[in-house]
């Protein structure tokens, strides 16, 4: 694995104008098999997103995704590049003016030529077209997404996508519970084998496998924080990793300051999830200007829906949560925590959806 602070000339999109981000530059990092237009892995992620989403060149998905790509979301895996193309077309038809703004790209080179890019995007758009069952509302929508993309030779070979879908639904005037219950009803029809992935994922999390950042890596601090909280229920000890005035941006409009607020966010999850298991799936870090460090963690929880909670009355079902957190570290502590997960998918599971 390449050192987290290697290639300092590959810089974050943080604080840069779109003109700066899209200015073409000579290659500054070895990228075997990548199109010549890309100067580095950050440029690849930002530029290809712009070409596909804003320039509407959706067909570029065919040269930027592997034919057998698997895109993991909390509603199940989507397989194959043509599925990616079709989903992109549908989203673009409903949200035609969607602008996909890069807030950060935190990347790692996990093996020679194999990159993992954790791309935080906030998109804004107007729902001008029909979106499946939803007629055009003309509502403005702003939603944050984090896309963890595994990239080799110009192609995304696997992707893990988390989106603040509850906030997006609320923005267009829909009740997340209504949407989740309707989807759960559909889930309970047809071949249940299509939901087998969820039981497999829960078993993976329960097995306790996962990634472990090596000593000295900036991800050690937040990874230990989450493990101390979720595995040991030592929330106060865990929160010592945070600045006393840390800023939290969590899904569905959770905005707050301080260690107590962070604990409050975790307790909302922990109240719902009994006998909880935590797995760290990936970590990455990159230097930020001024000495700060950006850390990306992708993590999952599995637990029995045993408590009346933010996700409604206890159902006794096993629930799975997949999240990506982007942290800003300063002087050895976390000063910002931006975490994203699909809370509609949690309601859908609590409503009896996504398989047994």
């Amino acid at each position, binding site marked *: 694995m390449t050192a987290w602070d290697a290639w300092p000339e590959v810089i974050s*999109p*943080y*604080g*840069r*104008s*779109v003109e700066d981000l899209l200015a073409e530059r000579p290659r500054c990092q070895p990228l075997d098999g990548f199109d010549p237009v890309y100067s580095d892995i950050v440029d690849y992620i930002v530029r290809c997103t712009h070409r596909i989403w804003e320039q509407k060149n959706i067909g570029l998905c065919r040269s930027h995704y592997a034919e057998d790509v698997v895109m993991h979301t909390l509603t199940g895996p989507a397989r194959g590049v043509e599925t990616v193309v079709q989903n992109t077309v549908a989203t673009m038809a409903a949200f035609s003016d969607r*602008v996909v*703004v*890069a*807030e950060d790209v935190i990347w790692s080179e996990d093996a020679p030529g194999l990159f993992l890019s954790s791309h935080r995007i*906030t998109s*804004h758009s107007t729902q001008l077209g029909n979106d499946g069952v939803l007629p055009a509302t003309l509502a*403005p929508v*702003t939603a944050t997404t984090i896309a963890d993309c595994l990239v080799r030779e110009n192609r995304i070979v696997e992707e893990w996508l988390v989106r603040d879908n*509850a*906030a997006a639904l*609320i*923005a267009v005037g829909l009740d*997340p*519970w209504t949407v989740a219950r309707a989807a759960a009803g559909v889930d309970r029809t047809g071949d249940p084998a299509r939901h087998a992935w969820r039981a497999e994922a829960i078993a993976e999390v329960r097995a306790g496998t996962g990634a472990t950042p090596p000593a000295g890596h900036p991800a050690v601090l937040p990874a230990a924080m989450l493990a101390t909280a979720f595995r040991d229920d030592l929330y*106060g000890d865990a*929160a010592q990793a945070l*600045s*006393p*005035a840390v*800023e939290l941006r*969590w*899904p*569905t*409009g*959770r*905005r*707050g*300051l*301080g*260690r*107590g*607020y962070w*604990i*409050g*966010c975790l*307790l*909302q999850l922990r109240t719902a999830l009994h006998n909880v298991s935590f797995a760290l799936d990936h970590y990455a870090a990159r230097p930020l*200007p*001024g000495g700060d460090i950006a850390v990306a963690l992708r993590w999952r929880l599995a637990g029995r829906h045993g408590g009346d*909670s*933010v*996700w*409604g009355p206890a159902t006794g079902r096993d629930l799975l949560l997949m999240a990506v957190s982007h942290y800003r570290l*300063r*002087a*050895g*502590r976390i*000063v910002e925590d931006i975490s994203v997960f699909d*809370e509609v998918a949690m*309601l859908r599971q609590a409503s009896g959806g996504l398989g047994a």
Partner: protein
Amino acid sequence: MSEDLLALAAGHLPAAVVPACRLEGFGVETFGREAIGALVARYPAASDDWLTARTGTAVAVGGAGAEGPVLFADLHDGMIVRIWRLGAAVGLQPVSGVDVAADDDLHQSRRLVLFDAPDHPALTGGGAAAIVAAAERAAAADFGLAEPPLRSRVFVRRAFSDGASHVALFGLSVLANGARRQPIAFNMLAWCEGDAPPRLLVDRAGLAAAQAKAWAPHL
């Protein structure tokens, strides 16, 4: 940079605002250049006299009036990456979300001020002491609630020094007193000049929005 914030206060969108900029102000949170431009254009502010302070990573401008407005911005390489605007209420309400039940103190011995000096490397000289003193005053300030709050906590979100001036953005976490202890979160700004008492400005727009909001710690 000060000119850019003055332009924003006057309702114009300067080129220095990046696409991923976020604005907290007018009682709402707004993302992106276009939406920020549209919002500030709706509510231009006039002031005959503006205080300004800046460092490499932040800038603030403050109107002379009792309600400001004040604009505070994070900077990166001369670009504006985040903006807070504190001023009079305009009647806007944020999109609803999930509220979080939280304990700001984590101790029986309550702390008024949540501050860690290493978070604020641009705070120099006697800045840390001045900002903590200003935060203690902010915690005890009269926000115009029906009765004094049960408790007020001040999180020091941003702070920097510009010569003898020290400027800080506070996040207030207030628990109202009474049979219903409604949590209220809003921003304040402290402007400290030498030995003079700090100028404290409440974001009336954020306070009004927080007071009007129904508490919903669930989906």
